[in-house]
């Protein structure tokens, strides 16, 4: 009996010692790896730029590995919060420009010295604005994107549409002609527009002079129920009803709209510059469509003008929990170098520096997006803005409108009061 007890005790002690020493062995030493979080857009759209940056970084720091982990827009913030709480946040993170304010206000990033970064004197003003808070710089502009209509030139021609529409009314009329020619099966969309595509939908609102929220007397007031916004939403609802057979409760990334376009039952879609080459991708797209795809800026309801497009963009930031700030800064320098930014711009994005804007304007594939970028809108600049995005307020409003479950006015009223509440909630 006593021998058995002794053996059992020894076993337990051995296990305890083994367990405690095992956990101690895996702590990251100062300089052998950095972790970078980029979005899948980079993985799909410009992997060469990432590879270029990694090569240059490795040349500078031969014994440091770069672990690039790709995130999706819908989940990366929750993961980032969990990583911040657990003290294992990445060394570099890509943040959307609408997401920056909340995290800068909460002190999530290290402040950076502008002068060490390439092309810092010619950074795009709009993007740089999203990296600054209380006079300090907390991020580096990475790239911007504008949306335009990407379309099938052959289908337009076959349906009798000449040229490209110069006003929204012409656009809808042309779309109806496309629907008449191709829409018999019930699965063809002249304009593929999923219900939750709020970035596309709000372009209509801003085109008619409405806004998501306005600032009055130091407080935010949701304004999607203003007369101008209601008019825009009504026009949007009728256009989508006539021209789109996309899922009314889906969004533009699931399934990826460029890939649906590549399958051939879509006349046009409202997408970013990089979605054009993505639709022609060898592995997941349809390369044979290359000669018949074109793009033009979405026309405004006012003839001759363009609809404002959301000036989306990403910034690169260094989380405050990092132990490798110098390495992180060096990686960002490599990834925003002129060479890497040129690669990023080549796929249809707007590079972070005005020096490369001419590159886009000269290329017929990129010119429509550069033109569209001249008229842009942005979200309300409140630290609580990203909570409105996270709560899916605008998406839910759009679903109600497109599925007819609520009138435009009722859905907009509900969304506006939610936006007012979230934007004004005390920090």
């Amino acid at each position, binding site marked *: 009996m006593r021998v058995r007890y002794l053996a059992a005790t020894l076993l337990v002690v051995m296990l305890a010692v083994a367990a405690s020493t095992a956990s101690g062995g895996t702590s990251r030493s100062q300089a052998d790896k950095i972790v970078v979080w980029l979005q899948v857009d980079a993985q799909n759209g410009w992997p060469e730029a990432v590879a270029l940056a990694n090569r240059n970084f490795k040349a500078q720091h031969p014994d440091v590995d770069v672990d690039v982990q790709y995130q999706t827009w819908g989940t990366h913030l929750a993961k980032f919060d969990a990583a911040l709480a657990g003290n294992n946040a990445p060394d570099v993170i890509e943040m959307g420009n609408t997401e920056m304010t909340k995290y800068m206000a909460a002190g999530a990033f290290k402040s950076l010295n502008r002068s060490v970064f390439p092309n810092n004197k010619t950074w795009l003003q709009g993007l740089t604005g999203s990296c600054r808070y209380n006079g300090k710089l907390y991020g580096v502009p990475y790239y911007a994107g504008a949306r335009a209509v990407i379309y099938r030139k052959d289908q337009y021609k076959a349906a009798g549409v000449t040229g490209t529409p110069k006003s929204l009314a012409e656009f809808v009329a042309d779309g109806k002609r496309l629907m008449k020619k191709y829409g018999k099966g019930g*699965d063809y969309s002249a304009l593929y527009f999923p219900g939750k595509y709020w970035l596309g939908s709000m372009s209509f609102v801003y085109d008619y002079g409405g806004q998501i929220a306005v600032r009055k007397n130091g407080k935010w007031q949701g304004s999607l129920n203003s007369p101008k916004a209601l008019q825009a939403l009504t026009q949007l609802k009728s256009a989508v009803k006539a021209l789109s057979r996309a899922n009314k409760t889906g969004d533009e990334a699931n399934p990826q709209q460029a890939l649906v376009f590549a399958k051939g039952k879509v006349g046009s879609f409202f997408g970013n510059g990089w979605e054009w080459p993505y639709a022609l991708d060898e592995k997941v797209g349809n390369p044979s469509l290359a000669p018949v795809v074109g793009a033009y800026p979405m026309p405004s309801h006012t003839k001759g003008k363009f609809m404002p497009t959301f000036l989306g963009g990403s910034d690169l930031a260094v989380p405050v929990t990092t132990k490798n700030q110098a390495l992180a800064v060096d990686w960002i320098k490599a990834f925003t170098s002129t060479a890497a930014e040129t690669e990023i711009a080549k796929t249809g994005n707007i590079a972070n520096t005005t020096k490369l804007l001419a590159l886009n304007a000269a290329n017929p594939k990129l010119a429509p997006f550069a033109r569209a970028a001249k008229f842009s809108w942005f979200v309300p600049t409140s630290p609580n803005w990203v909570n409105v995005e996270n709560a899916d307020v605008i998406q839910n409003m759009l679903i109600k409108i497109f599925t007819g479950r609520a009138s435009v006015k009722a859905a907009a009223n509900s969304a506006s009061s939610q936006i007012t509440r979230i934007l004004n909630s005390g920090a």
Partner: protein
Amino acid sequence: MVTVAESEYPLASRRRRRFSRQRIGRGLAPYALLAPAAAVIGVILAYPLYLLVSLSFQKYGLFELIRHKGRGIGVDNYTRILHDSQFWQVLGRTVLFTVVAVSLTMVLGTAIALLLVQVSRFMRLALTTGLVLVWATPVVVAVNIWHWMVDFEFGVANYALTKLHLGDFIRHDWFESPWSGFGVITALVVWGAIPFVTITVYAGLAQVPQELLEAAAIDGARPWSAFREVTLPLLKPIFVILISLSIIWDFQVFQQIWIMLDQRPASDYYTMAIYAFSQSFRLSEYGLGSAIAVVMVLFMFLATIVYLRQMLKAGEVH
């Protein structure tokens, strides 16, 4: 029971002392054996539970998260929840969902268990294998498969239903209306829950003495009455346990809704678990999310206790 041992005690006091020392040793042994497991469970469950409750009394947003330090605000989180109309809507929806899902699970599970008794050995084997395979599939995998089956553009369930001339389901959005969406989700949850209920009830049915059923049949009882008068009372303890477990599990349903709706469920699809998660991780209000979770736990605890008391009182389980 107690009366048997007592009869030994009127003997000599020396023998009584020897008995009591052995009795204490024997009495302590079970606790000693349980202690390590209890300690592990305590550490894994008790500490997070303590943290959850203390978090529910704090303001803990992104700012506090980065500094790892919250700000005590008393019961503000609780008052905020109880005054929020969305909370009551979500609670009502979760209760309705739980009632429907648990009822369907129990009825269908018991029906299949009764079927298992009647069929041939081969069919029983086939059916049991099917049930075990369903049970063994990880939830996330199963939900992803169902997600693909009812997909808007390419769902194979839509295709099959259309081919069977049950209507036109091509490019049918099951989740456009919350009623139809919850129909799909309930089907998914019940499908996943049936194997456990069926196999447990089947095992319980094996305890029902055949003679009682035969006697009931001889007395002219129809199958339904035989079930109600003979089988059901004998299975009552098992049903009590299964229903309590099902209530607890279905009240906390999260993954099915989350994955089916691409991790962005509309507010019409919020159940308590999703509401708590969304408050915490989407809106970075960890204190508020914790308060919702605590309310959830209390509610489930109350519901189960009330139900158990009722069952035990009514049944006087032997």
